[in-house]
Each structure stands twice: as structure tokens, then as C-alpha cells.
């Protein structure tokens, strides 16, 4: 094991849980989340071997969401509409509403899901979210507002429990 390898291992150990938490909300599935984190760390390791990273935490976050978004694009381009719907079993909401949250997030476009996760789970400022996703801060704000409106519709129980207070969260 090289010194760089050891440093990367330490870094990955400190970031594993945070990356996984974001990944599980992005993908909605435990196994897919682990796959996403592994691909993220793999890509990061290759870069780590070649040059020093100025902000490894931000880099890991950016790699995670970009890997997720690009994987969804690939999946989208490889899916074809069928005349007969495949037989599926829709997950029923469990008592604590966990499935509801995953389902509601799943209704968002991947990039909007990434914005929600970065903005509201990881509490990243708008400017930093914009830099991570390479879009303007204004675009992030607009998308975040629309995503929040969609989630309010999708999560009526939680919406009813909320108050009229709107946090700026910046």
C-alpha cells in the first residue's frame, strides 16, 4: 500500500457515510447507493493518484452527483417504450413514510433530485450547489423551489404537518 493509497483510504473512511446518505436518497435503493458510492470513490482514486486535490470533500460530492446524473442519462437512453407495461409491484408506503420519501424524490428529474439532496440534506449553500452542478445560482434557486413544490404535492402528510414558516436555508 502506497502512502497515497493510505491517505485515500483514510479520506474515504471519513466520507463513506456522508456519501452513502446522499446516494441512498438519490437512487432510492441500498444496493444502487452502494454501487454509486463505489463508482464515485473509484473515479476519485484515479484522480487522487495523479494529482493533489484542492478540496477533496467538494470533489467527492461533485463526483457523486455527476456520476449519478450521467448514469441516469445512460439509463434513459437505453430504455425503450413498450406497448405492454412490464409487471411491477408498486411499493406500498410503510408506516413511517420512508417509501413515500423515496417515491416522491423519484418523481423529480435526476438533476433536481441532486439539488434537493445537496441543498436540503447536506445543507450546501446555493452558490456551492451551483458550482457543483455547473449551473447558475439563479437556476439552482428556481429548480429548488419547483422541486419543493412537487415534493409538497407528493408528500401530503408531511405537508399537512408543516407550518406556514418558510426558512431561507441560506
Amino acid at each position, binding site marked *: 500500500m502506497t502512502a497515497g493509497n493510505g491517505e485515500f483510504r483514510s479520506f474515504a473512511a471519513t466520507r463513506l*457515510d456522508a456519501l452513502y446518505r446522499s446516494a441512498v436518497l438519490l437512487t432510492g435503493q441500498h444496493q444502487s447507493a452502494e454501487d454509486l*458510492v*463505489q463508482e*464515485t*470513490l473509484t473515479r476519485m*482514486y484515479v484522480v*487522487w493518484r495523479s494529482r493533489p486535490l484542492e478540496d477533496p470533500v467538494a470533489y467527492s460530492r461533485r463526483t457523486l452527483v455527476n456520476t449519478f446524473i450521467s448514469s441516469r442519462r445512460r439509463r434513459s437512453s437505453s430504455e425503450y417504450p413498450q406497448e405492454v407495461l412490464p409487471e411491477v409491484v408498486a411499493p406500498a408506503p410503510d408506516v413511517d413514510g420512508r417509501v413515500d420519501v423515496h417515491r416522491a424524490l423519484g418523481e423529480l428529474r435526476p438533476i433536481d433530485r441532486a439539488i434537493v439532496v445537496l441543498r436540503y440534506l447536506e445543507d450546501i449553500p446555493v452558490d456551492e450547489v451551483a458550482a457543483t452542478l455547473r449551473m447558475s445560482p439563479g437556476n439552482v434557486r428556481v429548480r429548488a423551489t419547483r422541486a419543493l413544490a412537487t415534493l409538497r404535492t407528493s408528500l401530503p402528510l408531511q405537508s399537512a404537518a408543516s407550518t406556514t*414558516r418558510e426558512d431561507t436555508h441560506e
Partner: protein
Amino acid sequence: MSETDLTVLLEQTADRSPAPDPGIIDRSIAAGERRVRRRTATRVLGAAAALAVVAAGATWTINAKVADRTPATSAAEACRRDYTPRVLPAWATTGFSSPNPTMPYVLGDRGDIVAILWAEHDPLVVPPAQDRNNKILWVGRVASEGSLQIKAHLIGSDRSVTRTVDGGPGPSIIDLPDAGCWSLDLTWGKQHDHLQLEYAPS
């Protein structure tokens, strides 16, 4: 639902998920290492292909001009003019399409580097031949940063020269000033090895 409500909801949902497998880290490093090796091999082969293009115009026949070569005086048994193609060490095969590529090569004394040659007979000549280059593909067992430094000494003489392969072990054209058996001390990063190569008179 406020933004704070959403944050709480997302955190609760994430908290309920099972813990990630810590083995992800080991698997990521292993996969990353494989990608690094593949990229290195791709670059090496790309450069080797470029060298081949440079050498084109000439016909690289393995048996070219062998029969009428005058035997050179070799100062050490380790130096050879004939190299029977052999299966490369497993760590030196990355990038070859065959799973067991067979090439003429010389293995370093410590087994940490191979010099892959491009002809079975007299692959290296002095002065350089008109129809081909003194091409050597260096492959190190362990990747390391920095260039490959070659200190070459003509055995039986006081003649020494140095050569540098930028970027470390990889494709190169190594011309040396005199025919004979050359002892090559090789250093790349923290790695070191030694081997001998015969340069035949052309």
C-alpha cells in the same frame, strides 16, 4: 412543508437506511488501480503505435538482415543477439490483446522491469539502422512517478552514457554510441533494476 421540514424528513429517511458496506473502500481502490493500469497501458501502446508509424516506410521483418550479420564481440554471457519470444510476465502484459502475449524481452536482474524488444535477432544496432529504430518498450512491475534514468556502461571499456525516458518506463528509442554489451542501470522513481543489452554493429 417548509425547507426545514424537508431537511428533517430527508435526514430521517437517510438515517433509516442500512449502513454501507465498509468493503466499498477496498473495492474502490482495487478498481481504481485497475483503471490506472489500463490508462497507463493505453498511453504506452499509443506511443508505441506512434513509434511504429515513425518507423514505417521500412519493413519491419523480424528476420531482416540476420544471415549476413557479423557476430559481435560480447563481453558478457548475459548479452545476447538472439531473443526467443517468450510469454511476458503477467504484470507486463497489460494492454496486449492476447492474454499471454509472446515477445522477445529481457527481464531485469531484480525482476522489476522488462525491456521488450521488437525483433528476435539483433534488435539493437550501432549505428542506428536506416530501416528501423532501436525501439525498446520498458514496463516496470511497479508504477512510479518521474522519468526512467538509464546509466549505460559499455562492458570492458570506460565508456558510459546516460539516457532519459520521459514519463517513466514506456516506449523509447535508445541509441548507444558503440557496439558491444552494455550494462544498464535503470532508475525510475524509487525503483531500481539492472540488465544488459547487446548492441550489434549494423
